[in-house]
């Protein structure tokens, strides 16, 4: 495996402060390697988007990062603590090193500015020495990169279709050739054909430009198809992470298995579809112990009192899972 480009350790995020605070993320440890596609999966409310925004400190109020570290590793080997950056440093870091393709392309573009304006303002902010003509040329180049005719440069967002807007967002994300691109449900609003078309294009661009991708979606079949490694989140924690094919063939966490069986696979043998009973927990009323235990068919004694740690199961160092089925069950004596 290649060197890491982003390491997250022990990240905690709350919504609200003081007595009203609820846990949104707990003890997140995650590493993104150079050039890989890391998938983040989970039901809505599992914290996968919160994680993506917390890393870039874009989380809207009342989100507060209450602990942990996020380090960005530069090419020269130096590490940058993203949580300690000042506003100005953060501004310089954003988009230059890490860009985001947002969920809901409908509202991601400023309705009163042309595509040209929105593609070039980011160049202007980060490359002030660039000439106006060069910026326009770069914008044209970016549009053709994502398969849009450069003539559309003067268009306003409302004049573009949903798919085109999403491509514009991707073009924008690549404007500065960042090291990391976070894609938050980049294709949810699009039809299935368009989804795959855009994702294929993205994979091709990644091969050409060599950036790393954090790919967030609730559609685990898309993840398995397009990512190298997958982390599965539940109730604000990572419950399992492993290579995409390992997750597909052999999910260890009962929740991963449940997710896997609630989506049809586009390739490979047919599987029986079954949902997960119950609904995801609410942030303000997180179950004790393993948050998944009320919905888990395989729960054992101790699941409702002890939070399982994310660790490698059976001496297999390449993957990790947070489930008492795969670790030594907590001693009854230690129960609270």
């Amino acid at each position, binding site marked *: 495996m290649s060197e890491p480009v982003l390491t997250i350790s022990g990240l905690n995020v709350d919504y609200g402060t003081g007595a009203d605070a609820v846990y949104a993320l707990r003890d997140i440890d995650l590493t993104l390697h150079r050039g890989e596609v890391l998938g983040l999966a989970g039901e*809505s409310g599992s914290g996968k988007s919160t994680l993506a925004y917390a890393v870039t400190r874009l989380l809207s109020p009342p989100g507060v990062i209450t602990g942990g570290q996020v380090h960005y590793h530069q090419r020269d080997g130096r590490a940058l603590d993203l*949580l300690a950056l000042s506003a100005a440093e953060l501004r310089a870091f954003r988009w230059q090193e890490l860009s985001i393709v947002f969920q809901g392309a409908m509202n991601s573009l400023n309705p009163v500015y042309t595509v040209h304006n929105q593609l070039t303002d980011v160049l202007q902010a980060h490359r002030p020495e660039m000439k106006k003509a060069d910026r326009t040329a770069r914008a044209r180049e970016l549009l053709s990169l994502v398969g849009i005719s450069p003539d559309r440069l003067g268009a306003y967002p409302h004049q573009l279709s949903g798919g085109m807007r999403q491509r514009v967002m991707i073009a924008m994300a690549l404007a500065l050739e960042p090291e990391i691109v976070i894609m938050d449900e980049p294709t949810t609003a699009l039809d299935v054909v368009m989804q795959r078309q855009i994702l294929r294009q993205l994979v091709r661009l990644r091969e050409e430009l060599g950036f790393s991708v954090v790919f967030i979606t609730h559609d685990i079949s898309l993840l398995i198809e397009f990512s190298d490694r997958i982390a599965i989140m539940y109730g604000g924690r990572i419950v399992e992470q492993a290579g995409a094919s390992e997750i597909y063939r052999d999910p260890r966490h009962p929740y991963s298995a449940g997710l896997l069986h609630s989506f049809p696979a586009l390739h490979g043998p047919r599987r029986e579809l079954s949902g997960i009973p119950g609904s995801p927990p609410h942030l303000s009323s997180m179950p004790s112990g393993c948050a998944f235990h009320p919905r888990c068919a395989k729960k054992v004694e101790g699941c409702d009192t002890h939070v399982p740690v994310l660790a490698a199961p059976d001496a297999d160092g390449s993957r990790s899972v947070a489930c008492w089925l795969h670790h030594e069950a907590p001693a009854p004596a230690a129960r609270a």
Partner: protein
Amino acid sequence: MAVTASEVAVLDATETPAASKRKFRFLRGRKTVVGLGILLFFVLMAIIGPWIAPYDPSAMSQDLLQPPSGSHWFGTTQTGQDVLSQILVGTRGVLLVGFVAGILATALSVLIGVTAGFLGGLADEALSLLSNVFLVIPGLPLIIIIASFVTDAGDLLIAFVIALTSWAWGARVLRAQTLSLRRRDYVEAARATGEPTWRIILFEVMPNLTAVIASGFVGTVIFAILSEITLAFIGVADISNWNWGTVLFWAQSSQALAQGAWWWFVPAGLCIALLGMSLALINFGIDEFVNPRLRTETGGSRKVKMRVGFTPVARTGTARHKETRS
């Protein structure tokens, strides 16, 4: 916003036990409490004012143009009338006209706005046009003209005229709200199962419009009170009927300003401003209840400074001092 939006949506959907708690949170807001407190004070004045007034507001006396004193707390007018008594007696008319006009105008706006939004089509076009026309025509000059054609316009008639010219804004807002509600699943479901239209409007749509209707009502009351006082001030309304505007009318026409008799016009104006502010505060409370983003007071500790686009980092023990505010 995508994250928090979806997560908050989940929050709202599952938070059934807390729903009733949230209703009272509206009352717990500092603005609302202050607003309701002031309003309550004036309502009390309106009820008991005429009884506790120390003098007959129209009775003249020998104490001409006296500044505030022990026997005349707010001083006297040029003809020796007691200003405090005039204010106390006048409160009832002010509130009566304000609330009657508010109720009438709100009823009109609900009727027209909800009907337009729910029926759609040609009826909507016609009713929207009607409310837009009334919205653009300046209300005050119209009220002045109508009121001045009626000799000896009483309180109720004034309230009626004000209501007739001030329903349009509420109707417009309600129409938009109804329009969005009409497309919601539960309303569509009720239509599909053949529930009669009036039932859908009454039981499915109206409960969801409560906050909008309430804020429209409060807004109209503010407008009605200001209009009424204005009418009295310029002498269109019946000036033998005491209200705060009448006090100002006499003060203005007796050159109180030039004589330096500030006590003659200051109390009435402060009362108007206080009453108007209390209603405005209640309206903010409603707005913030409907749209929590607008809140100025964020719950919990104010140590962490929230800022859009730059999530605060409050790692215990480390960066916290950076974020504290005095």
